[in-house]
């Protein structure tokens, strides 16, 4: 009963706080207003996505096209980044491990680092920059040139065609790209290890995955699915709500990248905490 009263009191205090600042014209009240309006509209946007996801038409062809755009066209950048990070990370990790006589642990260290953190995070950040900005700019441009309204008036649901297909594509393709990035990173790392220790690729891979658990792999998959969804939904939300001409398109692309990167870091911290909590049992 006391808990109920406390919750009611807390909600009342919060409501009074909002009312106090809602009627004012000062900058703070406007920011409070816009923060809550934005939060509400993002949640509404996400709810609409899930509502329309299972409705007809499926737009399967467009989903495949978007998967190609998101996945295949990101391969060169992911390859370069993953490979270079693999080499550099191995090079930088070697001296302290050699100092403690633990150079043989290097493949395990690289394996754990790539599967648990580097693979999903690097892929997500690169995709946020490349794919997120692309989606934000493309939809933003369609919005300000009335192409989205044109779809609407020609009896085609623009949300289904533009938003649902892109979010599904990023949610499906980011885990695939993460897998690819991890593989390329390990390949880069192997080249460095092989240069120093003449280890075979099979031995390197066996050592790399020796310490990787099922929980590590499953948390990486869950993380990359969440990152993919975040990149897609933020890019689409920003683009779909773009306004004020070409300047608005630039802002939509920029905000899509900044906001999705911020969310990716926040999600990374949350997922790591949950994974560690599960691992402690």
């Amino acid at each position: 009963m006391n808990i109920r009263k406390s919750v009611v009191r807390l909600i009342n205090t919060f409501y009074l706080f909002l009312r106090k600042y809602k009627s004012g014209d000062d900058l703070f009240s406007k920011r409070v207003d816009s923060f809550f309006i934005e939060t509400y509209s993002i949640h509404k946007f996400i709810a609409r996505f899930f509502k329309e996801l299972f409705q007809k038409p499926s737009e399967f062809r467009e989903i495949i096209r978007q998967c190609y755009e998101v996945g295949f066209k990101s391969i060169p950048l992911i390859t370069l980044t993953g490979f270079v990070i693999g080499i550099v990370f191995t090079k930088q990790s070697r001296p302290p491990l050699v100092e403690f006589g633990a150079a043989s642990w290097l493949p395990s260290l690289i394996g754990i680092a790539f599967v648990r953190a580097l693979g999903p995070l690097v892929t997500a950040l690169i995709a946020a920059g490349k794919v997120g900005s692309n989606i934000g700019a493309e939809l933003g441009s369609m919005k300000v040139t009335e192409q989205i309204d044109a779809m609407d008036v020609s009896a085609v649901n623009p949300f289904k065609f533009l938003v649902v297909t892109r979010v599904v594509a990023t949610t499906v393709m980011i885990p695939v790209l993460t897998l690819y990035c991890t593989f390329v990173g390990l390949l880069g790392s192997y080249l460095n290890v092989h240069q120093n220790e003449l280890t075979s690729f099979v031995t390197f891979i066996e050592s790399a995955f020796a310490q990787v658990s099922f929980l590590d792999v499953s948390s990486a998959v869950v993380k990359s699915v969440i990152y993919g969804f975040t990149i897609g939904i933020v890019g689409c939300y920003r683009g779909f709500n773009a306004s004020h001409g070409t300047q608005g398109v630039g802002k939509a692309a920029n905000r899509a990248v900044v906001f999705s990167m911020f969310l990716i870091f926040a999600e990374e911290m949350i997922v790591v905490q949950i994974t560690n909590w599960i691992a402690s049992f």
Partner: protein
Amino acid sequence: MKNENQPGIKEEIVISIRGLYKSFGESQVLKGIDLDVFKGENFVVLGRSGSGKSVLIKIIAGLLKPDQGIVNVIGLKVDKLNQKELQGLRLKMGFIFQSSALYDSMTIRENLEFSMIRNFKHLSSTEINTAVEEVLDAVGLKEKINQMPSDLSGGQIKRIGIARTLILRPEIMLYDEPTAGLDPITCTEINELINEVQSRYNTSSIIITHDLTCAKETGHRIAMLQDGNFFRLGTFEEVFDTDDIRMKSFFDYNFIR
């Protein structure tokens, strides 16, 4: 005022608006508009920039919600329809945007097919192809079928915009500034096309424009929108046969330049 003496125009009302109000923030754009558009009629709305002409047709198309008032299109109250019903109504309505709003990542063929493929799933690809070629032929741009919108001139883009709506065989056409930004010869061609569309497909149209030549050549009735309401309504001659300074300045600017 009816146009019973005009050929092709019937007494049947296809668009009926009563007491329409719309505001954006502090600014009240439409203040109690009443309007009837008859079947087969070309109704022209004239007015200064920012007078709410485009807002009016966007409300009719269901792109904007009115603050107050009733908008009836082919017997359906637009603001009371759910998404599915609104999509059904939109198949009977063609909207030509000022910028034409062609999908710039698609070819002309894909632009025209886009809505048809999704709304008429029973049609075969041959039937869709025939429909595409037929409307392109109607607007005189059959040879542009595989080009991108960026390869076309302003007048051609307007024509493709009209073709994109015609392919759905609409009963109502809503034109937002169809001649804006075009040279006088292309304007004349677009005006002729609007009249041809009306006579060939028996459409009823609302044409939003500043261009008095367009209004005179296409409109059966003309209304002047000012301060959120129609202050003159009738045929071109009736509307401009006045000493009202607002009408005279509008007329003089268009014809004595």
